[in-house]
């Protein structure tokens, strides 16, 4: 047979036959180099690595990361209060020695507060505090506290809401103080010093404790930037983990765990990296077995898979050169290409065997394979690649990189197949011919390597039914399409980004636990301001917003000149009063008076907790309930809780000598503390403790960072939007994690939609070119039906849209079109007529598109098994989408063809 194939195909075939080993050696060298590159790929598995960098919010986020760093490693200690504090005291100095950490925030800088507490008190609290502490003796302190509570908090929750942060913190200190007092009044051995009770009363708990005081947090800010130096930050996480491991054995009653953006990133990388490779291998084996069964040969699948795997390594190498790493989307590339690229190999190998079986020599068979099937495979690959490349219009980095990676990946894989497969086939044929000679017996190619050339009649029968009853089939398809449109509009959006993280990650579970235990979200919005006064002003405005739980500002530590001028005379007067005050002697009935004050405190706290309950001030409720022992679930009071217990102890009577000592130490220490705290000296930035400076001041340049924490972990659009609305009403320049997540979702939706329309346009154009007319657009009908069915199925199985699965829509357009194209192509080239024509064309083409759909579904199906739930949902959506497109092609296209071709007698072949 004369070789009339295209010149490039003839040339490539001749080269493969003449120098197969040379080609394979060159391929091996390139693959080795690319493998080397691919092994250097960074796994950037956090969603923050995929943000649209042009957006102002993202730029602000990146600026904060660069200039201030982020507290991206959180150490959570769980256990009894004293055990946790002991561990924190040992761990913190070790952490501070780590070169890779910029800041460690564990204990409050008490020495700073001791000397500058009252000048930093808000005006509305200032007078109250001076009144409260007018009498520093033991009974007087509690009386002053009760008077203040009754003036401010027991009539309405308005003031509770205003002072929620201060109240919760001071009540934690009060709890500690009462515990120490009880230990001393009852003469417990090793009771902490009374001085410590005074410190707790005046400064609150020195460590960041949860509301139930069973969790303690230490925040670490790495020097590295989590966006640009992910490897460095992950190494820091490992160093911190190492320190925790070293300290842990000495504290067996404390459970230490890590969380934070960096730790979750490390866990994700470890989970995804290993799991991806495992699933890739599983998918490879599964596809091999499927092909082996279909082609009834163990060799063909190997020929199909080797060039494909080579192509995948080339792609990963190119991705390293282009992007340096893989993000959450591009990490799935191996499996996406495995599912897609195998189709190219299958089509080419089938054509090669067909030519060989027909008696062609190897070179001619290769030329036919490349020139004929290769051209149509190239067209199909270009369609898919263009559909992927449309995603490059996205500003969202994750989507952009995925579009580029998948588009280029398809083309690179095809190139690898075009170069490698002919050489492999040439080598195999040479060895086969030698084997024949050596065995000295006749054998046909078909007997040695026979692909199953049979047809799937059942697919033909289904298609024939559609052809015979087009109205029925199209009606059903129409109903399903309408139902799917309804469903896609009613599918909810997932705004809880922790729900997209891998299942079972301890760091994720801890991240969710912290807001519940502390009554405040652990991640923040931020604002860079120009001055301390601006920081103060912003804080006051932000505190009034309902969803704002706390604002961390440098102005908390530096009073304004005006405030200092106003406070100074009062403070000097107060200091003089404290200095001159004689502490009253402890009298025999003072224990009863103290008990009465604690009883009164109990009344006040219970009343406050009821008001806080109605107002939803959970932090206050929980701390008070811990103190009073009230259990809201059982509506019972645990009388062993500290407040009932100490009150009871005092009512029963205490050892007078011991009580006298306690009262004397308390009064003296309280006097000293109050005198120091009332120091009216100005505070300058240079006076601030290092950890506070590092938390609010930039590493270089100007600006002050203000951190705004939401009242709770926000995970629904309504509250995310409300929080954004509330904080941006104070300053439009405020950005935050919540806004970033909403932006990520909105952008993916918007860009996914744009890319889908663009992909549809490109596909329509290519179809019209390929089929030389509008008739090509018929292939869009099963694609549209299948894509809608995918969205309908997502609703049906209870999936929510997230930024991972939203890009499945433009992708399914690129992949799903193949079925329609092949089916339409085969139908148009079928020479028979009527029902026979539809039956014959579909029973043959049906088998091919079923096989390629199955291999693609295996690829996406393996992604569907990812532990990372966001990525898994992407795989699940496309698994259903590819299946739906196949079914739509077999069920819907014949009915459409009947409408279009049913009455036409002339058939263009």
């Amino acid at each position, binding site marked *: 047979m004369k070789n009339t194939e295209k010149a490039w195909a003839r040339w490539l075939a001749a080269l493969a036959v003449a120098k197969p080993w040379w080609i394979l050696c060159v391929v091996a060298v390139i693959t080795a180099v690319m493998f080397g590159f691919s092994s250097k790929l960074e796994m950037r598995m956090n969603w923050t690595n995929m943000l649209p960098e042009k957006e102002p919010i993202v730029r602000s986020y990146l600026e904060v990361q660069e200039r201030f760093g982020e507290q991206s490693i959180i150490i959570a200690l769980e256990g009894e209060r004293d055990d946790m504090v002991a561990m924190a005291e040992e761990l913190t100095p070790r952490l501070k020695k780590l070169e890779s950490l910029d800041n460690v925030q564990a204990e409050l800088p008490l020495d700073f507060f001791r000397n500058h507490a009252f000048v930093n008190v808000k005006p509305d609290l200032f007078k109250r505090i001076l009144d409260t502490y007018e009498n520093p003796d033991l009974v007087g302190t509690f009386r002053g506290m009760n008077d203040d509570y009754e003036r401010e908090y027991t009539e309405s929750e308005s003031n509770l809401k205003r002072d929620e942060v201060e109240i919760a913190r001071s009540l934690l200190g009060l709890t500690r103080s009462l515990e120490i007092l009880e230990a001393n009044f009852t003469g417990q051995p090793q009771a902490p010093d009374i001085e410590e009770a005074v410190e707790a009363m005046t400064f609150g708990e020195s460590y960041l404790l949860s509301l139930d005081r069973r969790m303690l947090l230490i925040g670490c800010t790495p020097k590295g930037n989590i966006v640009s130096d992910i490897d460095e930050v992950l190494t820091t996480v490992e160093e911190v983990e190492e320190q925790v491991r070293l300290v842990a054995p000495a504290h067996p009653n404390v459970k230490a765990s890590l969380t934070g953006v960096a730790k979750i990133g490390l866990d994700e990388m470890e989970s995804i990296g290993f799991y991806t490779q495992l699933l890739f291998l599983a998918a490879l084996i599964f596809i091999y077995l499927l092909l082996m069964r279909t082609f009834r040969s163990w060799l063909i699948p190997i020929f199909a898979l080797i060039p494909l795997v080579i192509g995948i390594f080339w792609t990963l190498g190119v991705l390293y050169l282009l992007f340096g790493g893989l993000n959450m989307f591009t990490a799935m590339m191996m499996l996406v290409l495995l599912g897609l690229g195998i189709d190219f190999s299958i089509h080419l190998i089938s054509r090669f065997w067909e030519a060989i079986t027909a008696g062609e020599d190897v070179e001619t068979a290769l030329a036919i394979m490349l020139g004929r099937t290769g051209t149509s495979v190239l067209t199909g690959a270009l369609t898919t690649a263009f559909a992927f490349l449309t995603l490059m219009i996205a500003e969202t980095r994750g989507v952009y990189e995925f579009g580029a990676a998948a588009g280029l990946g398809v083309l690179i894989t095809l190139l690898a197949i075009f170069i490698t497969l002919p050489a492999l086939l040439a080598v195999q044929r040479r060895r086969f011919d030698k084997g024949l000679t050596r065995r000295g017996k006749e054998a046909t190619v078909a007997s040695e390597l026979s692909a199953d050339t049979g047809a799937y009649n059942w697919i033909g029968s289904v298609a024939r039914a559609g052809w015979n009853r087009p109205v029925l089939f199209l009606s059903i398809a129409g109903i399903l399409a309408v139902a799917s449109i309804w469903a896609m509009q009613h599918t909810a959006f997932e705004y809880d980004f922790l729900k997209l993280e891998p299942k079972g990650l301890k760091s994720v579970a801890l991240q969710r636990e912290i807001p519940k235990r502390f009554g405040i979200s652990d991640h923040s919005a931020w604002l860079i301001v120009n001055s301390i006064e601006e920081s103060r002003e912003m804080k006051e405005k932000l505190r009034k917003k309902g969803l704002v739980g706390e604002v961390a500002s440098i102005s908390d530590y530096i009073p304004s000149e005006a405030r200092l001028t106003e406070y100074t005379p009062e403070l000097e007067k107060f200091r003089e009063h404290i200095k001159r005050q004689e502490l009253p002697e402890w009298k025999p009935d003072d224990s009863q008076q103290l008990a009465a004050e604690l009883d009164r405190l109990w*009344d006040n706290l*219970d009343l406050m907790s009821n008001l806080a309950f*109605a107002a*939803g001030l959970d932090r206050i409720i929980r701390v008070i309930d811990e103190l009073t022992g*009230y259990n*809201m679930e059982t509506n019972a009071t645990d009388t062993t809780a500290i407040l009932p217990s100490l009150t009871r102890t005092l009512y029963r009577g205490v050892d007078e000598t011991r009580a006298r000592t306690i009262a004397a130490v308390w009064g003296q220490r309280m006097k000293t503390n109050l005198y120091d705290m009332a120091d009216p000296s100005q505070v300058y930035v240079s006076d601030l403790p290092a950890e506070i400076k590092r938390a609010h001041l930039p590493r270089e340049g100007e600006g002050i960072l203000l951190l705004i924490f939401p009242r*709770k972990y926000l995970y629904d659009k309504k*509250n995310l939007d409300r929080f954004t609305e*509330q904080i941006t009403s104070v300053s439009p320049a405020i950005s935050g994690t919540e806004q970033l997540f909403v932006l990520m979702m909105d952008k993916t939706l918007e860009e996914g939609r744009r890319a889908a329309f663009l992909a549809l346009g490109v596909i329509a154009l290519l179809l019209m070119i390929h089929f030389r007319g509008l008739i090509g657009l018929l292939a869009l009908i099963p694609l549209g039906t299948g894509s809608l069915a995918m969205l309908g199925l997502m609703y049906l199985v209870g999936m929510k849209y997230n930024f991972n699965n939203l890009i499945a829509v433009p992708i399914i357009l690129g992949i799903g079109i193949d079925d329609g194209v092949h089916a339409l192509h085969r139908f148009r080239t079928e020479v028979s007529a009527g029902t026979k024509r539809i039956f014959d064309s579909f029973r043959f083409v049906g088998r091919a598109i079923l096989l390629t759909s199955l291999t693609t579904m295996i690829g996406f199906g393996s992604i569907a098994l990812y532990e990372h739930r966001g990525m898994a949902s992407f795989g699940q959506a496309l698994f259903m989408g590819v299946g739906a497109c196949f079914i739509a092609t077999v069920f819907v296209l014949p009915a459409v063809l009947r409408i279009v071709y049913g009455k036409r007698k002339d058939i263009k072949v």
Partner: protein
Amino acid sequence: MEKINHKGRTFPWALLLVMGLAAGFAFAQEDGASWLKLIDEAERIPHATGIIEQTITTSGGSERTLTMRFWSAEEGELSLMAYTAPARVKGDKILQRDDGDNIWYYMKRRDVTRHFVGTARRQSAMGSDFSYEDLGSGDMTEDYTAELLGDETLDDVPCVKLKCTPTESGPSYEHIIVWVGVEDYLPRKIDYYDDDGHLKTLTLSDFQTIEGRKLAMRMEMVNVREGSRTQMVQQSISFKDEPEPSLFTKEALSREIR
């Protein structure tokens, strides 16, 4: 029994003020003062008892539902609320006298009664978006001067729109805007303004006729600044039996009410 101050009304009488207004409007009056007078005439209900369900949605998004029984007498001068759910506040009571100048809170869990001073009037009532002042809104003609702003239709109900400015002894708001139905003379909506602008909006709905009196069974107060809201649904109400005067005393707070 203590002397009753007839200046105003207290909770839950105040609920009736906003729910059951204006049944006796004999003819339409075009000036604001006349409207206020007629509103006051319409709201004089001798006594009432009932059950209210209050749902508070805080600005933080959490939701609390509290149920309470209420009694009012002396044309609203005396009122008592007793919480029946949830368990945390069950048995707690709020007694109001003298137009909210005297408020007592009884907490069953600690068997303690606290007296709130007059300043509490302006603060929110038990975590809700209603202040004691809103609930005991007093005599409209004494508390406000009104200006007729015009006609407006709210939810297909033709209304007159009044701008009411507090008198010297009136509430703490800068002004309120009231929409009153021109056919049944019942208010449909009230916007509350303070010095910083629009603060809250009260919406009244689900109007029903109970024992011959038409009133709103549902009220919702939205704090537009903080985003919190409080919905009060009248589960039952009766105007037949007059509560015992002894019910409205501080001493009675600690006693069980059958």
